[in-house]
């Protein structure tokens, strides 16, 4: 927080080194969120650029009511969603909306232990499966999972970024986790060659 305040103050004073500090602090995080949503590196890059440009032009109006990180994530999220809408993707598929309201979550089906993380991480096929599984999530679940479990935002921060209630964040995170676990379970079952397929 103190760092953000210092960066903002220096930026307002026109200090170019503060731009590097801002960029280093947030560029990767914003890029990962945009890439997770858009699945297109060029578009993700555009979103990051838009986000920083917006931050720079709103410097004088940013009063620190929310944390700078939350504000930047929110701008990047909205820019990503705008692009998806223009491409004709709905932000929240109807199947999500229904089950989200009832809170019903499918019970886990694959009940086998996995290989160790070390074994999985050196397996190229397994790493590709991690990417595929997260991309198979609906965008509303993906956004929550990326912000909460990968970027480490709190439930309250995630709710602010996405403009939804903390309760909805928790429901979506739970659904995302169970869906990812289920999808990966057969491939990650251990020992190698002993299970699955």
């Amino acid at each position, binding site marked *: 927080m103190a760092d953000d305040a210092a960066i903002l103050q220096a*930026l*307002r004073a*026109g*200090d*170019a*080194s503060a*731009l*590097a500090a801002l*960029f280093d602090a947030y*560029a*990767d995080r914003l*890029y*990962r969120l945009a890439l997770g949503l858009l699945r297109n*590196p060029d578009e993700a*890059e555009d979103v*990051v*650029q838009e986000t*920083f*440009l917006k931050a*720079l*032009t709103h*410097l004088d109006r940013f009063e620190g009511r929310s944390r700078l990180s939350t504000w930047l994530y929110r701008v990047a999220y909205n820019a990503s969603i705008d692009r998806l809408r223009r491409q004709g993707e709905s932000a929240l598929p109807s199947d999500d909306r229904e089950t989200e309201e009832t*809170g019903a*979550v499918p*019970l*886990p089906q694959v*009940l*086998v*232990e*996995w290989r160790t*993380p070390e074994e*999985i*991480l050196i397996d190229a096929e397994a*790493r590709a499966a*991690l990417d595929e599984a*997260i991309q198979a999530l609906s965008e509303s679940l993906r956004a929550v*999972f*990326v912000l909460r*479990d*990968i*970027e*480490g935002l709190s439930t309250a921060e995630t709710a602010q970024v996405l403009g939804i209630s903390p309760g909805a964040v*928790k429901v979506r*995170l*739970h659904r995302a*986790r*169970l869906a*990812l*676990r289920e999808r*990966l*379970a057969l491939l*990650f079952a251990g020992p190698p060659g002993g299970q699955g397929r």
Partner: protein
Amino acid sequence: MNCEELIRYLSDYIDRELDEELRADAQEHLATCRNCRVVLDTTQQMIFLYRRTGRRAIPAERRGRLFRRLQEAFQGSGTGTTADQAA
């Protein structure tokens, strides 16, 4: 607590957001239910794997290009001055 309830509370359990009583109930169930233990372990492992692999940096070329464009915009806006310009 039965399996269905355990699964419903699984994320709250992982995030340590259950009150003490529910947490104790969950632990009691986990102590006797292998299936739920597997689901808990593999869910935590899944989260760990994404934390390890998901925090990628912008590829260097893209990163350099992005930063240069922002620098130009910052200087062009009139608010920014660089060390070069100042010198």
